[in-house]
Each structure stands twice: as C-alpha cells, then as structure tokens.
C-alpha cells in the first residue's frame, strides 16, 4: 500500500510538472499579451511593462525564473492584469468559495445520484428505472447555462430566502450547488446503475437471494461495495473539477469563485495567473485520483492483492 502511495505520488508530481511546463510555453504562444487594451499602448510603454515583469526575456529564462521563485520564495508571481494582486492572493480568495460550492454540489450529487442509480438497477426495466434514467439523461443533456438561469428564474425569484444570484448570504450557495449537484447526480446515477446491474447479475447475488437475504441486505451489504466502483472512479476527478469552480455556474449566479478566473485569465493573457490556476487544478486532480485509487483498493480486495504483488 505504501509502495503504491509513493509510486502514485511520484507519477502525480511528474504529471503536474509536465502540465505546468506545457502550459507555460503554450500561453506564451497565444496571440496578444496581458497589456493589450481598448487603446493601443505606445511602444515605449509596452516595452517598459514587459521589462518590469520580466517578459522581455526569452521564454526559457522566464521559465527558469518562474520555478526559481516558486521553489525559493513560494512566489507564484503577480497578476499582470490586476496589478498589485499576487496570484496566491487571488487563489486564496476564490478557492474557499469554490471549495464550499463544490463540497455542497458533490454532496447533492452523491445523495441524489447514487440512490437513484441503485433504485434504477433494482427495478431494472420497470417504470421507476425508466423515469429515473429519463431524468438522468435530461440532467446530462441540459447544459448548466440552461439549468442555472432556469433555477434562478423559477426558484430564486419566488422562493423566500433563495437568491437569484450573488454571494451576500449563506443561502446564495443553494441554487449554484443544486445546479452543479444535479448535473453530476445524473452522471453518478447512470454509472451507479451500470455498476449495480453488473453486480446484481453475479452468482453470489443469486446465492444471497436464495439464502433469503432481503432487498436492503442484498443492495447495501452485498452489491453496493462492488457496484459503486465505476461511480467512485468518476467521483475523484469530478470532485476536483467541482471544487476548482465552474465558469458557467459562477457566471450565471455571480459567484466569486475560481471558475471565472480559468476563462478570464486565459482571455486576458494573465500568464502567471493561468499558471497558478493550472498548478492548483493539476495538484487537486492528482490528489483526487490518488484518493480514488486508494478508495478502489479499499473497496476491491483483488486490487489490494495486485498492489501487494
């Protein structure tokens, strides 16, 4: 287990390093620069700004300086568009918002999606299955930019306490979390159903039924552990994506989270912010995958023996 952990950590560090390196050079190949505005800047001003932030040096020198600053001073660089703000400040302000929203969204997804998938599998090809899978398909097909405003218009404007958009009271998180949660619940429901169907048709389940196990015992004691494997594999990256924010949901509900930065930093060519966000996202994805790997090992004894081998 420990060996597996270290192996995965080493792989994760390599992935993050390669991801950050590719991003570094790719963003600098995009047309334009962070200082472009509505009005054209005089050449001498552009040169001064480039010199100030070290962008007048070769990409390779910039790359080494970037890593040097991170490793020696923990400095992820300044925002080139919102001067005076550090990348770490921006992430530190936005991440807790996205984290809170992501945790709520994931909780909704799990509470709704997994039971829906289980029930659907239990009542395979009967009307609850058809209804639940129709709803799941609807959730998968409807984009967040449709569901979000729909919730805002129907619930936000008419249910007391709920907010159409904004982030000025705790209940403002309800609708964006519901939007994020239900979309992921739809995926989870289908994955859980698939996993459960496979398990329910296994011989050991027939044996359990023959021995007189009730529905609850069959589902929760015998089937759930193996039936959840596909859903658990999905949960890791989905959780990392959720807690790093969604541009669409944050725009629809005016949430000051990380998702907005992912898109805006790219369109603004805010190089250091893009790199900081990619680094943050990369580390979270690697961490989430690591947790999923460990969870899968815990759930599936066969993987444990493979890991030991």
């Amino acid at each position, binding site marked *: 287990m420990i060996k597996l952990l270290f192996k995965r950590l080493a792989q994760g560090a390599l992935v993050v390093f390669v991801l950050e390196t590719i991003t570094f050079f790719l963003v600098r190949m995009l047309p*334009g620069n962070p200082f472009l505005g509505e009005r054209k800047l005089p050449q001498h001003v552009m040169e001064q700004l480039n010199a100030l932030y070290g962008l007048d040096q070769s990409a390779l020198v910039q790359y080494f300086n970037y890593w040097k600053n991170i490793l020696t001073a923990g400095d992820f660089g300044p925002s080139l568009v919102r001067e005076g703000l550090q990348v770490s400040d921006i992430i530190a302000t936005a991440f807790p918002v996205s984290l809170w929203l992501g945790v709520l969204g994931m909780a909704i997804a799990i509470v709704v999606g997994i039971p829906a998938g289980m029930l659907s599998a239990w009542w395979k090809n009967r009307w609850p299955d058809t209804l639940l899978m129709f709803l799941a398909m609807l959730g998968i097909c409807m984009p967040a930019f449709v569901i979000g405003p729909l919730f805002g218009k129907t619930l936000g404007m008419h249910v007391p306490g709920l907010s159409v958009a904004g982030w000025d009271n705790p209940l403002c998180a309800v609708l964006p979390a519901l939007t994020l949660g239900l979309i992921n619940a739809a995926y989870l429901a289908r994955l859980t159903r698939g996993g459960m169907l496979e398990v329910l048709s296994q011989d050991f389940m027939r044996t359990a039924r023959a021995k007189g196990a009730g529905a609850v015992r069959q589902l929760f004691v015998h089937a759930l552990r193996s039936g959840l494997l596909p859903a658990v594999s999905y949960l890791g990256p989905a959780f990392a994506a959720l807690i790093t924010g969604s541009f669409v949901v944050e725009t629809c509900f005016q949430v000051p989270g990380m998702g907005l930065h992912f898109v805006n930093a790219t369109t603004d060519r805010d190089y250091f912010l893009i790199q900081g966000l990619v680094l943050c996202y990369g580390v979270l994805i690697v961490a989430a995958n690591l947790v999923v790997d460990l969870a899968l090992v815990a759930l599936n004894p066969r993987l444990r023996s493979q890991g030991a081998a």
Partner: protein
Amino acid sequence: MNVRAIVTIALSCLLTACGERRSSAERFAESGILVVGNNSEPQSQDPHKATAVADGKIICTLLEGLVRPSPVQDGDVLPGTAERWEHNERADEWIFHLNRAAKWSDGTPLTARDFAYAYQRLLHPQFAGKYAEMLYPLLHAEQYNKGRCDWEQVGVKVIDDHTLQLTLSGPTPHLPRLLLHFTWFPVPAHRVEALGGMLDRRSLWTRPENWVGNGAYVIDAHRFNDYLSVRPNPLYLRAAEVKNRGVRFLPIVNGYTETRMYLGGKLHITNNVPPEMLAYARSEREQDFCRDPYYCTIFYRLNTTRPPLSDARVRRALHLAIDREALVNKVVRGAGVPTTTFTPPGAGYAVKAPAEPATQAEREDEARRLLAEAGFEGAKGFPVLELMTTSRDVQRVMAETIQAMWEQVLGIHVDIHSCEWTAYKAAQQNMEYDISSSSWSGDYLDPATFVELWRSGGGNNCTGWGSTECDSALAAARATGSADERRAHLQQAEECMLRELPILPLYHSERTYLRSNRHVSGWQPRLLDNFPLDAVEVKP
C-alpha cells in the same frame, strides 16, 4: 462546539433567511446604500494603473480632481479641489487655486504638490502608465514620458501649496472637461511614498486598509469578483452634500445575470441590458427601463493598406450597401441611432455627412455603380474578404447581417472570423485584418476624443489611412484658442475622413439599463455615463 450546536446555528440561519421577505436591494436601500452593477472586476483603484470604464466609475467616487462634474447639466464643470481658476487669452496657461480646506481622508492637507506628484508619476518614463497619453496636452509631457527631457521642463508648476500652474502645448479651451478624467486626479504623495514609492507598480496603497483619498467616499471593503463598497469620507470638502450613505459596486460581467439580479431584487441600477433581453426587461419593469444616449460609436474599420479596400470607391460601395435602419432595429433591437458620421452628437458638436442618395434602394444602386467603376462589375474578380469580430453574440449577429447585405446588394462574399478579445485586439492593432468590427467611446466630453483618432499614424487609427487635409485641420484645431474655430476645424477633419471612409460608421450606441424608480432619485443620464454617485439619493 458539538454537532447539535452546529445544526442549531445552521437551522437558525436558514430560518432567518427564509423568514426574510425583503430583497437585498430593499435592505440596502433602508441603510441608504446604493447597489450598482459595474460590468467587471476593477483592474485597480489606482488612477495611474486603471484603464477600464468600470475602474473609472469607482475612482470617481474615491478621488476628486481640480474640477468635478455638475450633477445638473451634462458637460458643465464645477469647482472640485480647486475653488477657482483662470487662464490666459490663448488658453494654454492655466492657474488653479486650490481650496485651502481640502484634506486627504487621513487628515493630511491636500496641496498642489500632490497634483504635481500625480502627474509626474503617470508620465514618468519608468512607471509605464498605460493612460499617460491623456496628459500629453501638458507642455513637453510626451517628451518626458518618452525619456527625452527632464520633469522640470514639463508644464506643471507648483507656485505654492495652494496654487498650481499648468502650461499646455497649445490652446486648450476644453481643459476643464479633460480634467474630469481620472488620469488628472491627484494621488496622496505621502501615502504612495510610504508604501513603495512613486514607481512601484505593485504598491498596495489602494488596498482598503491603506486607502487614502480626497473624494466623496473611501473604500470600505473589497472582495475580489464579489463587490467593492465605499462609505462616505467625513473629511471630503462637501461631505454634507453627499446624498447617500455608500455605494456597493457589483462586478457583473454577464448582462443576463445582471438583469436577472435586478429583477430578483439585488440591484438598484444595472450597467447594461443586453439587446436580446430588452423586450423582456421592458415588459417586466417598464417604469424602470432606461435608454440614454451614450458617447460611443459602433463602426467597422477597413484596412486601407490592402486591396481592394485601398480604393475609396470600394469602401464607399460597402458603406452604401449597409441598411443601417434594419441593422439597428432588428439586430441591436433599437439600442442605437443609425449613423453615417463618426462623432456622436453632443458637447455642442455635430458634423454633416457627405451627401448621399436619399433612399436605401438608391444607395444600393449607387453602391453597385461604384463597385463596377472600381473594376468589379457584378462583383466579378472581387476577392473574398475577412470580417473580424469579437465573440460577443451581438457582434457576431451584426456581422452575419452585414455579410448578407453585401452578398445581396453587391454580390460579394466576406468570411466572418470571430475571435476572442485579446486575439482580436492584437490583430486589429497590428492591422492583421481586412474588416474589423470596432467601437470607440469618448474619454471626455469633447469631439477631439473621436476626431483625433484619424490623425495619420495615430496609435488607435489602425486603418492605415491618413490624409494631409485631415492632419492639417487637426493641427489647426490644436493651435487655436477659439472654441468656435476649433469646432470648425474638427468638423473639417471629420468631413475629410468621411469622404474617404477608412471606416464604416454604423450606429451611435445607446445605454440600456434598469434603474429602480422606487429606490433611486436624483439620477440623470450622462453621455459619458459619469453621473456623480454622491448626488444620488437612495430611498427605502
């Protein structure tokens, strides 16, 4: 804290929130706080680093220049930090007498040195001020900004603590209107020096905890991408005249979200209702719906260095083939005024477009004739041009409409290239385009902010077009101290440009937004959308 306590607190919060029937706009109105949509997260509250309109709106509440805008009449200026001023006959030497009672919000006296310090900072060759050009009317300012002379040679002189002399490179009778722009505002020299110095672009002096200003408000709180709130500055010169108890700016980029937030009781004034939502917003809140003229023109730039757009007849043919009435009514849904001129009317200036056929059918005939005259009879041999737009919905639909008009009337085809904003600006500024959708909004209420664009080789010209006649008229406008003569020269320059048409003017923009009649009073529309927010009353 045990689980029961956490659950109790959470439930109490939930019940309190559910029991709250008032909208947040109502709650803020009861506290006398104005909540406004402000388009985007501000880049900075430092007047020397900010460039966006959204930044300007906030800075104008936090800092005050030598003069301030009149809340009564658009374009009029009132004494601000300066209580009076005078100028010589040529209007190229101005003396401002500062109000002796003027103080920064930390109690430090505000002196003429703060203004001189601010101007030197923005123009300093090592500061890299993006908007330094705004101060170029000052004598030798451009040379200093480019490192070609010393600060002592620049036309800014502190006569004493309360007297500032500005010497300009030419007659500038419209200087007071220029001074309304935030680039001319002072900065607290003592604060800037204490927190990094004049040239430190990363200085944190604008953070709420460090903020010192001389405007009607000081920064109260700022949560990135969430809100920026300001509260009254008790040491403001006219603190007793401030009509509300603060302003909360919400950086809402998306017009749909903003409109929904207004309808859901989250805002008192929105920044913008997108064209697609105009009918809906109007039907929901007829009494709150506003449509005001805006000092902005929407137009297409033509790259005149590339054939066949280098031929003025081709450019005019493209110009005549556009049915602007249809464009404004169907695409922009009425949020604009069709135009064939460039500078929007206002500030006592209007220009006559060159004579054109009266009806659209006649215009189209003339367009076909001009195209044939240019050697493209029936569009034969006309190359496929590329029309570059941003990825904004309205821009793309407008491009598709004009593409169809040209195809129908002239038989020519253009490809639409929609790109994200920075790539679009880079291509436009490097002139890597054929036709580019563009807009221009005035920095100050004066036609020069539009007409000066067409100076040969001007940084924002970006069409490759230039004309000696236009340049001479602009030079003559800069050289005269008479407002009437200046206006006539500017008209001559614009008429010259309109004869050659390096651009296709489409419409003068209008601002469409929602404003709560119930909670807001004293608001008046402004061409530059710069109504002083301290004059807005907020009613419960």
